[in-house]
């Protein structure tokens, strides 16, 4: 699945020059000099690096809206900008406390980037963030049960096969692989469509008050995402089995 980098009509916060932080909410005392900090990252008084606000979600950290179509190039640029602000390389000569903040901020940043960079992880994170559903476990699509049972049989047969029989099961599994990749690509397309749908529903705040339409969209995303993870796993399993003999 590849939702990005095609540019959608929707713009990220960065393009608009918007800040998704509410100035009032970000006010807090500096850990170092205790004067009030207004700037997001550094104290305007003593320039000490500040810890992230507790519960800053990944979308907010990157100053993006709660959108699923993200321009990866913009995301990367923002990641580099923030890395240059936080990275421990630049805090070698500061106090131990500031070094620790730099380390924790960078760790949080890299985790956020890793999640947002990958369209599926991004979607799973949004689902979790909205608190609509819990985790997104891998689950087999019900309509594919029979096919999947057959694949398991083929996998077992290949493992037990003598060298003369191998070719036969390999051919069968190659066909299975193609079929599963097809299903996975279809799931990817569905996820892509759902991402566009979500972005059109204009969710600006994560406050657990969603319209039915928004709720349904999240539910459907979760369902397809579970299938997709499952299909990913089985494709990988078949590939490994084929690699082992081939």
């Amino acid at each position: 699945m590849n939702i990005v980098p095609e540019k959608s009509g929707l713009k990220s916060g960065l393009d608009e020059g918007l800040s998704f932080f509410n100035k009032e909410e970000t006010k807090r005392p500096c850990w170092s000099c205790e004067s009030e900090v207004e700037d997001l990252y550094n104290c305007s008084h003593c320039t000490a690096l500040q810890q992230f606000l507790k519960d800053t979600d990944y979308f907010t950290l990157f100053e993006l809206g709660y959108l699923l179509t993200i321009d990866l190039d913009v995301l990367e640029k923002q990641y580099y900008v923030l890395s240059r602000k936080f990275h421990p390389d630049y805090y070698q000569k500061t106090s131990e406390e500031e070094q620790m903040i730099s380390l924790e901020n960078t760790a949080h940043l890299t985790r956020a980037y890793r999640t947002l960079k990958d369209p599926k992880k991004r979607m799973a994170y949004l689902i979790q963030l909205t608190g609509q559903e819990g985790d997104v476990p891998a689950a087999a699509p019900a309509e594919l049960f029979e096919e999947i049972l057959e694949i398991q049989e083929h996998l077992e047969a290949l493992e037990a096969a003598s060298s003369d029989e191998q070719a036969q099961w390999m051919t069968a599994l190659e066909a299975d692989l193609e079929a599963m990749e097809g299903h996975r690509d279809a799931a990817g397309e569905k996820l892509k469509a759902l991402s566009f749908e979500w972005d059109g529903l204009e969710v600006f705040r994560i406050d657990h008050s969603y319209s039915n339409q928004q709720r349904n969209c999240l539910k459907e995303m979760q369902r397809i995402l579970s299938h997709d993870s499952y299909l990913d796993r089985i494709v990988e399993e078949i590939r490994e089995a084929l690699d082992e003999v081939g």
Partner: protein
Amino acid sequence: MHDKKSHIVGIDLGTTNSLIAYMDGTAPRIIRDASGRAALPSIVSFDESGDTSKVLVGEKAKEKLVSCPERTIYSVKRFMGKGREDLEEDLQLIPFTLVGEEKEAIRIAIGEKRYTPPEISAFVLRELKSRAEAALQAPVSKAVITVPAYFNDSQRQATKDAGRLAGLEVLRIVNEPTAASLAYGLQKEKEGIIAIYDLGGGTFDISILKIRNGIFEVLSTNGDTHLGGDDFDQALVRMVRDEVLEQHKVNLNQIPELLQQARLISEDIKCQLSTKTSATFVLALPKGLGAYRREIQKKEFEALIQGLVKRTLSSCKRALADAGLKVDDVKEVVLVGGSTRIPLVKESVAALFKQTPHSELDPDEVVAMGAAIQADILSGGLSDLLLLDVTPLSLGIETMGGVVSRLIPRNATIPTSAKESFSTFVDGQQSVSIHVVQGEREMVTDCRSLAKFNLTGIDPMPAGMPRIEVNFLIDANGILNVTAKDLRSGRAQSIEVKPTYGLSDEETEDMIATSMEHAKEDMEKRILVELKNEAETVLRHSEKALKQGTDLLDDEEKHKIETAIADLKTALSNQQGKAIREGLNRLDESTQKLAGDLMSRSVKEALQDKRLTDVEG
């Protein structure tokens, strides 16, 4: 005297050779020894006494490989952070003795003493440190040390320990291919996707990087910490060993000196075959058995190593897949490490990436240069450059049934962290143990055990009530740090760490303390040796002078000198440093007049001679 700027040095602590570099203005510079050699062989040799003050390091130790194979340690990097069970295959081809229990750091036995791999590496680091101090005319106490990208947590920790034991504050552990990319990128101001293929003496790494606006972002890395030039040598050794056994009925495994010789000849043959199509292997056998002689064709050698080279290519493919890239996306390929001089390696890499790989920068020196650049970044010099590296292996914890629950995936950019909540299973339980593993497999038994943690001091509560949040943080060195918090009380939880293959902090502290003690001891021993040499020389001269100048002395003077000589001889035989020093002073004092008289007589004689010659001439 000019201002002594404290330098942070960059060190490439290699399997076969080690190098040290520093930043000279804006260019990295390798520090060479007096004879202009950049590479210090990573070899440490002990004499029969096992005395640490008489340890040889580098070229001098290399000379001992064949004459003292049991006490000359090479390729110790391969044992860093490892246990006995990891090394079964190596044991039979190593002439020195490795000891250790399962699931414990391996130790090297030298006589009665036992050394951990970090302690051996520390000898190499100390040598590099003093080389740098002599060249820079300033103390060196801070360093960036490189490790293979595919080193796991225990191996990184062991490297850091080695630095500490050598008296170096290790500011950063940097991955070798990434360091190489810095040196390469700085030189060329490249942008785009590059692949660094690093095949050294003992390890192989492939790293895929994206360079953009001075940011070096590692996208993925893969490799094998037990695959390198050593293995190519060993492939030859095995062939020779089998043939010698068959043709001459001599078992090299039972003759360490010969085995070592075979290994060294193999290394030489390997190098020869990089430029020639055949080379001759000659090994002298024990007396009366003649010699083993064999012409080895390049093709034959290539057949022996083909499987190993193929393994590196599979790693490259996996790294590309993990980065989500195809061969065509890679703009340039850079070769690092001495083993990339082998034509088969070069050709294979070129074929895989469909382009001629770069090797303009010396593949042996580029890593140390990169380490010096990173050192400069850390000291605030090159602030435009930023390196974003990754952790090579997934990090997880053991859950029910020995299954791994993955917390941080491989190729995650570091520093990074993950949180996990834990609770108790039985009422009133006051501690929870957590097993941290590293690796890509599903079952704990197939992964690398890193450490076991005990969360202690939990308030007694019904089962499942306590909520302890554990934060796993991988720092910029790729080393795991763990902290825990009781979510109910907000209190920090104490953690007891038991690294599986490494040394606990206490053990390292102990070693540093012992090495300091030994340092003092060693110094005293060295001083005594020097004093004894001086005393022997002075005695020799004094006795000679006494004989020559006996007519110049009265009885009292003569007696004084004779007593002083006798006293010094006694002090010397008692090996007492202080008494030797005093005896020396006294003898010196008592012979001063005689020395002066002798001197003037010889001058007089010389002048007389001269006059005679003048007359005659």
